[in-house]
């Protein structure tokens, strides 16, 4: 069990009687690039929120480095969360503070570094996503794509072991999208475990060692991009072909 960075074991979750995850079991090795695919509303974001402990499963278990996340006491859960970065689909930047302070926020909360060092690290993280000049801007002054990149910089602030990213390239132009992919690949090379929820098949092929597809709450395919291309399942094949349709 402890050989995996993340393991979901028979996880089911329903909202208002509608089953969003149905007996999902998967495991992700440390340092892997794992891409979760699927149409909108199939439970991909819900899966990520289970991993970080924002949602508790109705049944099943969610393990992060062997620890059963839903049953952890608050203090231990906080420790697990400190080792993870999370990019939300909506970016979820704190809109009352500047972009730079958003990135600095985890550093101020969880390190005893000087203000100077925190600002310098936050600026470096913003530079990684091409926003070095936007430290003092408010989130409302950024475009959707820039907010996404700022959210990614915040998720990377503490150099987490595990990075959960929800639609990292949505709303980005192709060049920036490629840059984000390269950034994620570099993180993976440094040993960060990546869990990427995406609709962007080329991006998934590039970043993911392994891909999995959720359909109507169930995990219907798992493997390399080539294995999914040759899947027996029509839905999987159609989804993998959809890259050319944009």
């Amino acid at each position, binding site marked *: 069990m402890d050989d995996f960075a993340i393991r979901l074991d028979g996880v089911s979750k329903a909202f208002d009687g509608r089953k969003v995850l149905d007996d999902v079991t998967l495991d992700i090795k440390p340092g892997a690039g794992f891409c979760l695919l699927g149409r909108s509303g199939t439970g991909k974001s819900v899966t990520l*929120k289970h991993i*970080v*402990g*924002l949602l508790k499963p109705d049944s099943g278990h969610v393990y992060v480095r062997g620890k059963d996340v839903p049953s952890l006491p*608050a203090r231990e*859960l*906080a*420790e697990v*969360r*400190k080792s*993870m970065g*999370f990019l*939300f*689909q*909506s970016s*979820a*930047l*704190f*809109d*009352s503070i500047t972009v730079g302070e958003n990135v600095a*926020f*985890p550093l101020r*909360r*969880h390190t005893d570094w000087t203000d100077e060092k925190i600002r310098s690290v936050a600026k470096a993280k913003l530079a990684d996503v091409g926003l070095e000049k936007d430290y003092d801007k408010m989130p409302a002054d950024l475009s959707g794509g820039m907010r996404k990149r700022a959210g990614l910089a*915040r998720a990377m602030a503490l150099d987490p072991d595990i990075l959960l990213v929800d639609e990292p390239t949505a709303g980005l132009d192709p060049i920036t999208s490629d840059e984000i992919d390269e950034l994620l690949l570099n993180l993976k090379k440094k040993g960060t475990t990546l869990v990427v929820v995406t609709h962007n098949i080329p991006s998934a092929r590039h970043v993911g060692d392994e891909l999995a597809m959720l359909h109507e709450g169930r995990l219907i395919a798992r493997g390399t991009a080539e294995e999914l291309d040759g899947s027996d399942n029509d839905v999987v094949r159609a989804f993998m072909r959809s890259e050319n349709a944009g």
Partner: protein
Amino acid sequence: MLERVGGAILAALAWIGEVALFAFRALREAFLPPYELREISRHVFEIGWRSTPLVATSGLAIGIVLSMHTRASLERFGAEAMIPSGLAIALIRETGPLVTALLVAGRVGAGIGAELGAMKVTEQIDALEAAAVDSFKFLAVTRILACILAMPLLTTITDFCGIVGGFLAEFTVSGMSWDLYFNRAFSLIQFTDFIPATIKTAVFGLIIGTIGCYLGFTTTQGTEGVGRTATQSVVLSSILIIVTNVVLVRLIFFLFPANA
């Protein structure tokens, strides 16, 4: 019909229970580390200092109006000399605390509800949790404590400005000096008038902070929900303040019989 009424009453009681548990949890966690002193002082500034112009202006206007009404009544009995003390008692015991609470409920309660509601629907509260920050403590406890701390201070400002307003009205009509007005105003006031009435506003602060935070944390349905939360925060805080005031006044009379 009876079933529907019963259901509504049960739902209301369940809601009150949830809000009460939210308030108890906030008060309990206020005594547990981390204390988030930076956030608390920031909110005391936001809630307290930024409400000062509103409560000071209102206090001044209320003092003037109360003075005019009191004069109109007391003049008939040749008791104009009682105007300063009558006004001070009315302001300090009741009008100041209640008016301040309702004003702050309008300005701050709506603000807290809307801010936290917007944070909820844009996943900012989830982002705090994902960053290993206790969102309840960071967002709710700090705001509730700030409301509790700011309310007595704001009430004192309202009281003072009300007395100054009363003096301005009296000075315009009768030319009474500030020294004489001040002496008469405080001739009948005792600490038992000021302290319990001002401390009770801490309870009003608890109500304003709790309702705003609770509704903010439970906001759903996007921006429409945020608007509804802001409105409900003001309405529910105001109702609860008025009802709680009745209980607190009775309690003060019980504890300080001289005030009755």
